[in-house]
């Protein structure tokens, strides 16, 4: 696939965009029929920008093949241990800060693993990472006791005002999640399992990640911060990359990072706009400091052998025709994600941050009862929450919506711009659920460790999203079919999928009914 393109020695910095393509008012207010390619750029996540900094080809794989998160570490990270490690640390810290029972961290870990039904391998990895981490953190954990809810984990941030470079004045939208905002030690923390014990430098691009999170956070107006964070001056915060073995403090003044971010966003916009940029991306593959080619791949990139370089099998023989007919399908699947998911991100962020107060209120009016439903938590029943839709007018709208089986809900505490975003499952068949009264029993994921942050947790928004991520799954599956094949002729002759592809895209006879 990639061999068709010559590799440059080092990737060129892409000309920064003169302007980001924002959705127009009529798109935001849904006054035009959604059809075809979206006439605006996607709403990138922090992860998308990091992937694009790693290599522009990751943007192609993200948009066409539904692959994301190119930066990989040890195998266990890919299997979710990293996520569990971070979640466990947040539970541990919250437990201590809120004055919970004095439990040995490893006892707490045992409970966590059993609750999450983790297998023995995952538990043993977690144990190992935790012992390294605890060696350095025991003292600071002691200081944390009784400090109250002043450490925020998994904070969702979204901006339409991120700027990079010098005086170019281009504004970009970016959203993402910050691992930890510690208002006690005044630190923004990016936690990772990547890196080794003796590494003198932070793991590849983790420094960029925490810097980018800080840039997004500081581009958001203070009015949109929840009370508990409103008075914090994040310009003074330390940026920390935390591995199990070391904490790295990252400088905030990073002219190179500014250029990388602009370069990445230019790739994202260009590839979303036109397939011409796909060829450019292949020519510029690799990082600014490390080119990528077969035999000389970037070792931290998880896509190299999964997506970029793979052996071409002999069968199916009509692979090129299959590829040609799949290209518009990949793009259509991505366009669908932009209309369904990215436009909603624009709407929600602009509803809070746009300079035009009329647009803000029109968006709020449009989205309330259609995508967002203001709610409050009434009580906790076991590990579930009884939530009540506050606004009587929109209760019926939610009843209309929940008739569909393919719905996905999140609960947002605080604002969409800065808040906690958690996945919620409405339990419609439970006795406590009374849709006519706007009352639902819900299971909300990832609430461990957030108890006590009462200012956040009393009121929030129920956010309804159509399941756009299923399109991503389809892209991944179709891409894996495109790469798949076999070499042995005897097998290929009788292989149903090979024969079906070769018949569909070749001259053989296809019958729908037995002769």
């Amino acid at each position: 696939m990639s061999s068709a393109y010559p590799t440059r020695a080092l990737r060129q910095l892409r000309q920064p965009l003169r302007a980001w393509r924002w959705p127009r008012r009529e798109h935001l207010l849904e006054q035009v029929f959604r059809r075809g390619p979206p006439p605006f750029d996607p709403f990138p996540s922090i992860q998308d920008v990091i992937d694009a900094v790693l290599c522009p080809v990751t943007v192609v794989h993200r948009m066409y093949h539904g692959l994301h998160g190119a930066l990989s570490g040890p195998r266990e990270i890919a299997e979710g241990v990293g996520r569990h490690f971070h979640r466990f640390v947040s539970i541990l810290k919250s437990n201590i800060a809120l004055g919970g029972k004095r439990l040995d961290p490893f006892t707490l870990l045992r409970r966590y693993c059993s609750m999450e039904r983790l297998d023995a391998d995952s538990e043993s990895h977690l144990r190992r990472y935790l012992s390294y981490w605890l060696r350095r953190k025991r003292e600071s954990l002691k200081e944390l006791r009784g400090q109250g809810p002043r450490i925020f984990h998994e904070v969702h941030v979204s901006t339409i005002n991120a700027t990079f470079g010098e005086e170019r004045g281009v504004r970009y939208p970016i959203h993402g999640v910050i691992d930890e905002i510690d208002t006690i030690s005044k630190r923004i923390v990016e936690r990772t399992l990547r890196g080794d014990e003796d590494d003198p430098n932070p793991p590849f691009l983790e420094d960029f990640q925490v810097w980018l999170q800080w840039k997004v956070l500081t581009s958001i107006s203070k009015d949109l911060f929840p009370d508990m964070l409103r008075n914090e001056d994040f310009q003074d915060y330390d940026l920390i990359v935390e591995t199990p073995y070391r904490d790295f403090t990252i400088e905030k003044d990073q002219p190179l990072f500014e250029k990388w971010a602009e370069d990445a966003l230019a790739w994202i916009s260009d590839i979303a706009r036109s397939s011409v940029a796909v060829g450019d991306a292949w020519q510029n593959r690799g990082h600014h400091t490390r080119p990528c080619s077969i035999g000389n791949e970037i070792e931290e990139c998880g896509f190299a052998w999964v997506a970029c370089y793979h052996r071409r099998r002999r069968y199916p023989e009509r692979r090129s025709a299959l590829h040609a007919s799949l290209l518009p399908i990949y793009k259509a699947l991505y366009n669908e994600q932009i209309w369904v998911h990215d436009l909603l991100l624009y709407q929600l962020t602009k509803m809070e941050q746009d300079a035009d107060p009329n647009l803000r209120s029109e968006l709020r009016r449009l989205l309330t009862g259609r995508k967002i439903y203001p709610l409050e938590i009434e009580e906790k029943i076991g590990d579930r929450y009884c939530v009540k839709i506050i606004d009587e007018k929109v209760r019926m709208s939610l009843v209309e919506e929940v008739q569909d089986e393919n719905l996905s809900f999140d609960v947002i505490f605080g604002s969409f711009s800065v808040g906690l975003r958690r996945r919620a499952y409405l339990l419609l068949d439970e006795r406590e659920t009374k849709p006519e009264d706007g009352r639902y029993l819900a299971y909300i994921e990832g609430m461990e460790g957030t108890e006590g942050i009462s200012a956040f947790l009393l009121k929030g928004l129920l956010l309804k999203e159509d399941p756009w991520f299923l399109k991503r799954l389809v892209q991944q599956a179709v891409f894996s079919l495109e790469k798949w094949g076999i070499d042995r002729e005897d097998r290929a002759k009788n292989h149903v999928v090979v024969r079906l592809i070769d018949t569909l895209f070749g001259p053989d006879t296809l019958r729908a009914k037995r002769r």
Partner: protein
Amino acid sequence: MDEMSFRNRERLEETLKNFERRLNRDQVDAISSIIDEPVHDDYFLLPIVDGPPGTGKTTVGAYASLKAILEGNSQGILYIAPTNFAALQAKRAFERLGMESSDVVWLNHRSGLRDWNRGVVGARYDLSDLGPNDIRRLRSAPIIICTPYMLGRVKKGGLRPSNTKVIIDEFSQIDPALFFMILSRTGANVDRYLRGGYALLGDPLQLPVVTTQGELMQNVLEFILSHHTIDGELSSLTLQYRMHVEICEAINRMRRELCFWGDFRPLEPSDEVRFRDLTGLGYEYTEQNIKNGHLLTSEGLREILDPSHTFVVINTDKLPRRSTSTNEERTQSGSWRNNAEAEAAVDIAIAAHQAYHRQNEQLVPQIISPYNAQVCEIKYRLKSRLQALGISVEGKVIEESVMTAYKSQGREFPFVIVSLVRKNPERRIGFLEDEKLRAQVYVACSRAQGKLVLLMSRETFGGRDLYDELVNVKGSRHALLWGWD
């Protein structure tokens, strides 16, 4: 791979033998195509069964599956349905053929849901919530039914043997991307390759996936036809066992308008349903029980509910104006409702409930609308009217008796009331004009067995081929155009 077996093999063979006698020629053809080997020397067989409403395509799929396993042509079946509801319908079709519930497993995404007796199993994406015994039981289940998005789990757990037949139901909702995803997740394997092949069942004229992208709007049959000529014909089922002839004719007129390929074959009612109206379905009609509704008078309701009128189209422009506006309105959620039409639908439903009964059971008419907001409005009105009248109907019955056209796919009801909602001076009908989505009306109407009442505004819908053809009932003995001066 664990050995697969039916718990009640002998009884099942007996049931199938009896069932076989009732199959018509088209069904026998379709079944033999599904069972046949896919790879032939001079052609590749991808069985495609065009099964319009009421022709028993799911039953054909279920029957072919069982026969394939019993005759040793296949070791297992993977039955794919586009939605969980369709998956449940398919499971019921297998059970109707005499299969034990535990032999036909519906695999879904609800982790923690595990009822082996009912054959319902939920699993996380990585199957980490299933123990080794659960995996073994899934592997040995003769039939697994699931949606395309569950196929990752099937692949990960190696839940199907290589000699599996993959049957894809309701293919009008399978776009090319989903089709290739199914190929990828079921057959793209070097070592354990699929020998059973694929079969497609469905009505290509039914509803497509809702999408913003033209490329994804076409169903898999359209995609195949745009790339390759099919040698010969599709397996077409044209004898239907659901609708009265008058309703069937209305459906045929719509099919002619919707058909996107040349080979249009009209549906024929089987002898047993040809003149089967509500009385033929066993309902007794007591005209005296009909009282004035909120909007419609008892005379009007008697005319509409007369069992001899199996297809009634009500021009909502002529509904009496009471306190509510007869025009449509948009709700907060962006959907549409029409209060007057909702009230009329409730009037008809309640009058029908009072006038028709079978043994000790009152008729519960089914109300279908393309719009969510209208469905909610009707449910709300129906509940409060029934309460006021002191009629006790279980909440769940009301919930189930009003639904969207999408949700109604794959179901049938003795009496259906369809509310099209749209009514405005600009004659806008939104997606009901869309080349694909107008099939909502086709789907909604084709759910009816013995009586169909359609509420539509003549001024708003008139002048469009599909809707003009639908009401083109000249010379029909069993049709009534109400308010159609």
